């Protein structure tokens, strides 16, 4: 059963866009087990506190979107999941992000960030393929994990490229440079690169903000199709995108989590005034 609701992306006339809510998908989403639970997470750059006491549950094989105005901390939050902040001196985490079912605290001091990144993949804002061949780009994460057998690499690379809906476009030129691809293809290459390592959670940091509308549509389609394989957390500036692809949405403002709920609820019946103001385009 599909209901249509009206949503505004904050940039054009109110009520100009419609999204569809798939009721079966919604029921499924609510029944999904928790993959990661964020408990009282705070994050500091030196003395400055960038995230305040966040509590969120990321559901298994569902897509969770993080939205909010620039500087609200959504990317900072996303980068806690794979400890990208550890590369910078003077950063500090408080609280926990528990990965289930193994019960590993992703931001724990005793947990090696390298080990965290082995389990949790990331796709960046700007496509960043390595200056290597398409094949080697996808094989990179596998090589990091010590896989050397050529046959195994070839298999996994093909599987990852198929899952990223890129195989048909590049199967005849796996040896050409990853940089020779178009922007959208490069981003799908980066997704394939992350998928090859079979991450438990895949993080997307505004993956389409550097792409044109057609490439964006393809990436969105791809992200939705990934639900069956991996748990997705996506930061996006584009509210239509959040509405189109995600099952759950967290609205953040000034480092706080204002509201977290099913996407359909957030966009039709938000409980907070701030959320409503943001999604109806009053600020942000």
């Amino acid at each position, binding site marked *: 059963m599909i209901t249509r609701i009206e949503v505004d992306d904050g940039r054009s006339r109110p009520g100009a866009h419609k999204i569809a809510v798939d009721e079966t998908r919604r029921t499924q989403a609510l029944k999904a087990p928790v993959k990661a639970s964020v408990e009282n997470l705070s994050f500091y750059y030196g003395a400055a506190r960038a995230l305040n006491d966040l509590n969120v549950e990321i559901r298994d094989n569902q897509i969770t979107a993080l939205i909010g105005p620039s500087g609200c901390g959504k990317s900072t939050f996303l980068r806690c999941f794979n400890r990208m902040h550890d590369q910078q001196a003077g950063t500090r985490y408080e609280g926990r992000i528990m990965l289930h079912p193994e019960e590993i605290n992703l931001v724990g001091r005793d947990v090696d960030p390298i080990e965290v990144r082995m389990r949790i993949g990331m796709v960046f804002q700007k496509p960043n*393929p390595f*200056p290597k061949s398409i094949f080697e780009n996808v094989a990179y994460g596998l090589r990091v994990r010590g896989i050397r057998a050529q046959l195994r690499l070839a298999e996994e690379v093909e599987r990852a490229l198929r899952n990223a809906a890129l195989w048909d476009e590049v199967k005849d030129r796996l040896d050409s440079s990853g940089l020779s691809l178009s922007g959208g293809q490069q981003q799908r290459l980066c997704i394939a690169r992350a998928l090859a390592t079979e991450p438990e959670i895949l993080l997307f940091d505004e993956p389409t903000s550097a792409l044109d509308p057609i490439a964006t549509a393809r990436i969105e389609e791809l992200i939705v199709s990934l639900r069956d394989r991996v748990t997705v957390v996506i930061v996006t500036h584009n509210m239509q995108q959040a509405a189109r692809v995600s099952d759950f949405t967290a609205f953040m403002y000034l480092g706080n989590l204002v509201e977290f709920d099913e996407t359909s609820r957030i966009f039709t019946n938000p409980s907070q005034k701030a959320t409503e103001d943001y999604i109806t385009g009053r600020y942000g």
Partner: protein
Amino acid sequence: MSTLRRRRIVNVIAFSMSMVATAIGLALLCAILWTLLSRGFGALSFSVFTQMTPGPGSAGGLLNAIYGSLVMTALGILIGAPIGLLAGTYLAEYGRNSPLSTVVRFINDVQLSAPSIIVGLFVYMLMVMRMGHFSAIAGAVALGIIAMPVMVRTTEDMLNLVPKSMRDGSAALGAQPWYTITRIVYPAAKNGLVTGVLLAVARISGETAPLLFTALNNQFWNSNLNKPMANLPMVIFQFAMSPYGDWQRLAWVGALLITLFVLFLSIIARSISSLFGQHGNPGE
């Protein structure tokens, strides 16, 4: 109106003065090159490359000096380049913002402009005095110490040209920093690093002062690194100051050979780096 006029006059004066300065510089350079080329080519013969440096008043060549220069320059690069490369890697990768890097960077800049005779004296005290005699290896060490800061600087500059997004992409796939450096950063900066080595070779191949107290000179053929070794800069120095016409002519040839060698290296380095500018900066 008068302001405009005044500005125009000031501009004309500044422009003419800079033109004159350029002309003076170019004229001097041309005079030097012309003298060098005419005298050097005038005395150039096949025997220069087949015979040893002669005694006063007899004919001979520069074979032992050419050999000595090549050996000591090569050894100097083998000593200086790896240390410089790793130190530059530390500055650009591991310790980008650490206080230690700031200190190292400052000391490296001082070393870059330190008089080379100081380096010669340093190695004299360190090696020659302890060993009790001059040696080719001491000369090579002195040249290595000169090459080192050049390598540190170019390595850091070249690695900094590699976009951070590459390193992030690799780190997000679970790669250790050293893996990222060897598999992503070095290959991406390869051309620049090769250029840096060539420039370091060019820098040390004409150095005289560091060899004065270390390798000294040798009138005869010597391939023993533990003994004094002939080299072009010292032969030029000795022969040019002598009253003998044969020696003076050989000094001109030696100067010509070094100049052509450095010119050749600079041209290669330039063509590599122009290539680098066009294709070697991935992701930006």
